[in-house]
């Protein structure tokens, strides 16, 4: 089965000389849920536009669902549902007409439209109104419905939760999880780490047009340094639990030890299990920490 997205050395230099994307190699397999993270101007949107053939690469190549873009762009796009980050809709049309017209431009029938309208709480009365009367959140919902109504094999969403309230964000993530379980590929960009953490199998991080890392969420969590606080039953020598990954600096205050631990926590927990421990507190590894560490480090490369 061909990769859902296969980018090789994908580079985009704009006429102004700005490097939008710099030699990105990225493979997304069918059925994967991949979060595309990066700050503003990192190259997330440029990557998606290149993948969809809306921009022409300066170098490199990209294919969607096994179809090279732009050579087989029409075949590639027949399997894609896309929500742009800066959604543009015809303001004079009603929501219903917008969905109907966009559906007619896609070869797959809009089989999931009604279910999506219900899930995203977009009632018929709202669809009868013109798009120019819509709030930002309603426009975003309409954009999501047009992207997802065809149940496309490859879902590409550029900041899909922008403008949605927390309830709708949760429903959207739930919906996407459902589609991923049904075998659809979900590729979406975001600044919101929590939603990537919640939904994705893998994370790709970009900055300044360069791909900094592509890792599974599990792997990132495992590699991440955690803060650990252990309260022993009696005074204990730190050497008793020092295993690979435990930091050199251990703050001892009576029977309470504070230290950092990196990587797989299994050996540390096994070592602690051999001691008399009254309490253990391990701060969960958060994707946010990886993100901050990478983006706050000049030229940070964690791959």
């Amino acid at each position, binding site marked *: 089965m061909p990769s859902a997205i296969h980018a090789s050395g994908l580079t985009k230099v704009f006429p102004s000389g700005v490097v939008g994307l710099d030699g990105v190699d990225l493979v997304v397999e069918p059925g994967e849920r991949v979060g595309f993270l990066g700050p503003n101007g990192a190259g997330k949107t440029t990557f998606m*536009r290149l993948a*969809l053939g*809306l*921009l*022409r690469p300066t170098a490199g190549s990209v294919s969607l669902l096994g179809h090279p873009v732009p050579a087989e*762009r*029409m*075949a590639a*796009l*027949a399997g*894609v549902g*896309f929500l*742009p980050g*800066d*959604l*543009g*809709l*015809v303001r*004079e*049309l009603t929501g219903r*007409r917008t969905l109907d*017209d*966009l559906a*007619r*431009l*896609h*070869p797959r029938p809009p089989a999931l439209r009604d279910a999506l309208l219900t899930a995203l709480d977009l009632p018929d009365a709202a669809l009868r109104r013109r798009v120019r009367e819509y709030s930002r959140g309603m426009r975003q919902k309409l*954009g999501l419905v*047009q992207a997802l109504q065809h149940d496309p094999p490859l879902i590409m969403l550029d900041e899909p939760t922008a403008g949605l309230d927390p309830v709708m964000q949760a429903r959207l993530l739930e919906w996407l999880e459902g589609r991923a379980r049904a075998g659809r590929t979900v590729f979406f960009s975001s600044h919101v780490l929590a939603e990537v953490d919640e939904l994705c199998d893998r994370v790709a991080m970009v900055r300044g047009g360069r791909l900094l890392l592509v890792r599974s969420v599990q792997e990132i969590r495992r590699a991440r340094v955690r803060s650990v606080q252990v309260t022993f039953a009696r005074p204990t020598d730190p050497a008793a639990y020092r295993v690979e990954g435990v930091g050199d600096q251990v703050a001892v205050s009576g029977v309470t030890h504070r230290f950092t631990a990196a990587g797989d926590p299994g050996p540390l927990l096994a070592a602690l299990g051999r001691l008399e421990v009254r309490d253990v507190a391990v701060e969960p590894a958060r994707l946010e920490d990886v993100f901050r560490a990478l983006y706050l480090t000049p030229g940070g490369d964690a791959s």
Partner: protein
Amino acid sequence: MRVVLALTVARAWRRTLALALALMVFELLVGLSYASVDQNQIRQVVESLPPALRALASGADVASPSGYLGTGFAHPVALTLAAALAVSVAAIPARDVEHGVAEVLLARPLAPVRWMGAQALAMAILLAAVVAGGLAGGLVAVWTVDDLASVSPGGLVLVALTAWLVALTIGAATLAGAAVSRTGGRAIGIGAGFAVVAYALNYLAQVWTVMDPLGRISVYRYFRPAEVLREAALPWGDTLVLGAVAVALTAAALALTARRELAP
């Protein structure tokens, strides 16, 4: 393609209707006003005008029924009404790229050339509606003003056809501009600039013989409604030039669209 065509028509039908009505009223008023003027007086007045003002009539005999009514179609007001629609509709693709509408449409399996082709077709249909408004006004005038009875309704239809072709060239130039523009404003500027320069060249060529060769590159040089009405026959040479310019500019717009980037 039909979806894009319908979308463009849906977005522009109100302004099309307004401009069609305006052109209808204008041509009707021009026709009705012929009944209230003395032909000899008009001729004397026109002959006494300096060449710069006489050139506005493009050398037509404005005292004659066909010259008077034909001048109404070549009047700056009539030309502006048709050009306004041509420019505003043809700039839609550039506005759509600017505002991200094109990104939503073209992320579907829709070839950019077909998208632009549909816009060109929509523009041609909407321009036909506006010109039909002018034709209707002219026909009503011919049927109600006795002094215009000598004007052939068939000739008016031919005038409308050439007026449509002139407007199409303006629209096609704007479309070519839209194919290379990132903003609707720039495309409108290119289209309006094309129309104004073409009008100015044609006008200056009539009042200043040195400019005559440049007048030949103006599309308005090939729009002579008074002559068409007088002869009640299609001027094939002019029609072919206008048609060729419209087709060439539309082809250029399609070729440029195939090569352009389509994201904002």
